[in-house]
Structure formats: C-alpha cells, structure tokens
C-alpha cells in the first residue's frame, strides 16, 4: 500500500501535478476529459462531500459543495476546465480547484476519459 504524498500541489494548477505516486494514480490536466472513478462513491454533506474509493479503501473529504458539483459534472464536459466553468467558477477559482482535482486524480478518485 502506498503512502500519501506530502508534496503540496503545484501553485499553478494548469501544470501537471507531480508524477503519480500511487499505483493507479493519474497525472491531471484541466484541459483533459475526466470522470469519477466508478469505484468511488460520493456522499453529499453540508461542507461538501465524502468520497470513498472501494478499491484503495481511501476516504477523502471534498471541503466545498462546489467541488462536489465540479466532480459530479466532469463526465458531462470535454475538459475539467469546462466543468469548472459550468459550475460558475472564475479563472482564479478554477486554478484553486484544479489543485484539488489533481489530488483526486493522483489518488485515482477521478480517472481520464475519452473525450468522445
């Protein structure tokens, strides 16, 4: 079992996060197509949501209802950036959310998807 990273996400969320440090992790790009991993379940909460990965048995807390919205809409958009836009985020917020999405990708919570 891998151990979690302590490396902070890159300041510029449009750059790719550090190399995947989990087996099954993915390098994130805001300009690629993503979707929630089918092995992950979301439980909405006041603060955002719990996200649980049944395969890695990893629990994450999404600490913003908007992040939940973005994650839920990833599959409906050609890029993660478009999903952020659809959720009403501006460019600065999209950069912030990109860091969170990069962590979710690195931990296999969200996975790349064919844009078609």
């Amino acid at each position: 079992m891998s151990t979690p990273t302590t490396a902070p996400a890159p300041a510029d969320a449009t750059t790719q996060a550090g190399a995947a440090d989990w087996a099954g992790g993915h390098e994130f790009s805001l300009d690629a197509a993503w979707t929630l991993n089918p092995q992950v379940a979301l439980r909405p909460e006041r603060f955002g949501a719990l996200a649980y990965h049944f395969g890695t048995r990893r629990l994450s807390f999404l600490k913003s209802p908007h992040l939940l919205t973005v994650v839920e809409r990833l599959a409906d958009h050609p890029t993660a950036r478009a999903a952020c836009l659809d959720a009403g985020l501006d460019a600065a917020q999209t950069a912030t959310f990109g860091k969170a999405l990069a962590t979710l990708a690195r931990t296999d919570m969200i996975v790349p998807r064919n844009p078609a």
Partner: protein
Amino acid sequence: MSTVLPRAGVPGPTAASATSTRTPMDDLLATSAAASAHATGHATTAAPTGAQMRPVGSLVDEFQSGLDAPICLTWELTYACNLACVHCLSSSGRRDPRELSTAECKGVIDELQRMQVFYVNIGGGEPTVRKDFWELVDYATAHQVGVKFSTNGSRIDAAVAEKLAASDYVDVQISLDGATAEVNDYVRGPGSYDTAMTAMGHLKDAGFSGFKLSVVCTRQNIGQLDEFKAIADHYGAQLRLTRLRPSGRGADTWDELHPLPEQQKELYDWLVAHGEDVLTGDSFFHLAAYGDALPGLNLCGAGRVVCLIDPIGDVYACPFAIHDEFLAGNVRSEGGFQGVWQTSELFLELREPQSAGACNSCDFFDKCRGGCMAAKFFTGLPMDGPDPECVLGHGEELLKQRGDAFIPKPSMDHSKNLSKRQRLEKAAAERGITLPPEGQPLPVRQNGAGIPDKACDENPLAGFGTAEVVDRGASPSVDRLAGLGFPSRLEG
C-alpha cells in the same frame, strides 16, 4: 513484570479503531491515509474562495456538530473469542445468546448502505468464529459497505488468505502486542504470537500487501517499536499503533500495562520520526503537549462521526466506552440504527459544544482537548478534566487524589474466567437484584409462564425475582455528559 497472569488474548483495543490521516492537502480537499482510511481527515481548514461560495467551517467544526450518518463505525460481531487478552476492551470470551442473527446483521448492513456508511471496522470478540462471518462480509461488500476486520489470525489459513487477497473491498488487521513471543503472549496468551505470525505469513504468501499489523502500545512493548516496524515491513504490512485504554478488562490491567511518562515521550518521538508510514487511529492526540500535534483531526468522533455497534445490537458512542453511560440505543428498536444515530439523546448531547472544564486554562487544550472520554471515565476521573495520561502530569495528580473513589466497571462482561459464583453475581447485578450469601439457596423462580424476563433464558438468574433492588443508577456519580471536556479523536 508482575501481577498479570498470562492468559490468552482477543483482538485488543485494536479491534476497534480508526486510523489517522496524514496528508496535508490543498484547501479544498482532505485525504485519509490509505487503506482502512478512517474517519479522520487532515485538519486543514476549508477555505472556499470567491463571493458565490458559501463559507463552510473547518472540518473539525463540521464533525463536532455531528453528521447525519457516521463516517465509519466499529461493529463487534460477537463476544465470543478463543483468546482472553488481559486488556480486551470488550471483555470478550463467551458468546452472548442475544447476539444479532444473520438476518438482523444483514438488516443493519442494508441500513448502512442506505445511509452511505462506506465502511465498517469489524471486530469482536474474534469475529471470524461466527459461522456466518464470511457470509456477512460478502453481503456487506456486495452492498457498498467496505470491511476491515480485526483478528487474532487463528482462522487465517492459506485458503482464507487467498480469498482475502482476491478481494479489493476487504482489509485485514492482525493484532499483535509484542514483537517477541514473550512480550506478546504475556498479554494475549500462550501461542498467540505464533498464531499471528503464521497468519501474516499466509497473507504475505497470498500476495495480500498492505494489510494492517495492529499493536496496542504498552509499558512492555514501547521499547520494541523498531522491531514491530521490521515485522510489518517483512510481511508487507502497514504498522498501526494504538493507545491502551482502561476499558473492558483493560480497566483491571491498565495500572500495570499503560506506558510510563518517559515511555510516552519515547513513543511520541518515534511517531514524529515515522509519522508518514505508521497509522495510529488518531489515538495519541493526548501526547500533543510534547510539541507539535500528531497528524489527525484532534477531535473525538464519538457519537458525532463514529460509534460502536456491539454484538447484541447496542449502540455506544465509541468502542472504548461499553458502559450504560455511553449507550445510545439498540439497532433492534423501531427506528433501527438510523433512529439511534439521528435521535438518541446521548448522541445529540455529544454534538453540542463541550466545556473544557479544568483544562480550560491549558495552552495545549486546542491540541489535546482534554484527552479521551473513555480513559477518563474508566479511571474514575472527572469528564471535564485532564486525561489520566496527560503529559503535563495533571492526570497523574488526579489519580493520586482520587483514592478509593468508585471506579466504573464495564456494563458488559463476557470473560470466560469467571467462577460460577462470579457469574451469578454479575447476572444479579445486571438485573438489579442482590444475591443471598454464598451457600444459601437462590430465590424461587417466579415467572411461571416460562417467558424469559430478558432476551436470554440461558442466564442462571433469568426468571428469578428477588427482594432487594439495587439502584443501578447509583453507579458512577457522573451527570451524563454534563460539562464533559470532550476529547478528541475519531476512533471507529
């Protein structure tokens, strides 16, 4: 080592708890430590930005006031155990005839699925001795309830290990309380070291990497932390260290087994040095006054985001608090588990802000929050004061002053090592009646209809009524939860 006789062992306090999280995250996300992820997110605060984003309190604040469903919970499936560890927090040994049936357990799992409780930590007793254990594990994982179970390893043979290795949704935790047979078997009983090592060998051979090796830290094994780490590494396991609690039979052995003050510092330093690799169930927050807080939420999740379901369906605030004071209800009641979780008076009180009491003026209160509720309760200390193992020594002072004050006993005791007379006395106490002196005849059975007066007719005192009624409420003079300086930790 002195007074504790070697007996056999149960999955100790480890049967029950949660792991801490360790990943510092960006503002919008907190991620738990890998597998067997537990209730604790890292204590970073949410910082939503932008005008249209509704401000949300910190995760700690959110969790303090409770969630509509637990993040995870501990579920002890049986009080039966083939071992008899001297520190067993649930005083396990004999099965309780009132234990939930297979159908009732599946009903609980259905509820957990509806409530989106994503995983349970199954313990006991030794859960694998239940005939329907694997059926229940399979049922849970088929219903989106992941399982981590604690075991002494006695049923983990090569075939079981293969099956476990093939399942993503099941995690295993092997209990071991000494890095040598001498130290382990002193607490867990003769042969239990070899049993655990053999089980880990099977898991390794089956290719199950990342299972947990779970250790309760004691005075006798604090010096073996490096050896434990080496054992875990050898078997491809992840080491998990948790705190010894004075719960269950642990109440009787805590004085002898709990780490000495200088050992606490040794443990703290070791945890700081190995923090990223070792799980702790977030159970050592009371050591925070040595310096920086250890990773974790520094929050007691009891009744707020975690709880315990015991083998007979009783719901307690946490696995270390099997006592009427912390009993919220039973899953067999009309509203089921959800009703207990959402409406029990006890849990609603726990979700209110708690007073820091005597710890209010302490600079470290924000880190340790007065320590562990159960540790205070079962050592007879006030709930709104310091932990008995407060590293500033305040708990020790109180323990000295406490003298012969009444110390609460667990409400349940399924230990095997009771004499017939002791069992009778225990059963009488549970029913609020007083036994005649030894040698005199027992009272006459009054219930002619043959209907058990409790769910269990097996008990030697079922059906008897006697004169003197002992006031059960006379137990600990603790006004339920009044002024609890509530502890901090998510154990589940």
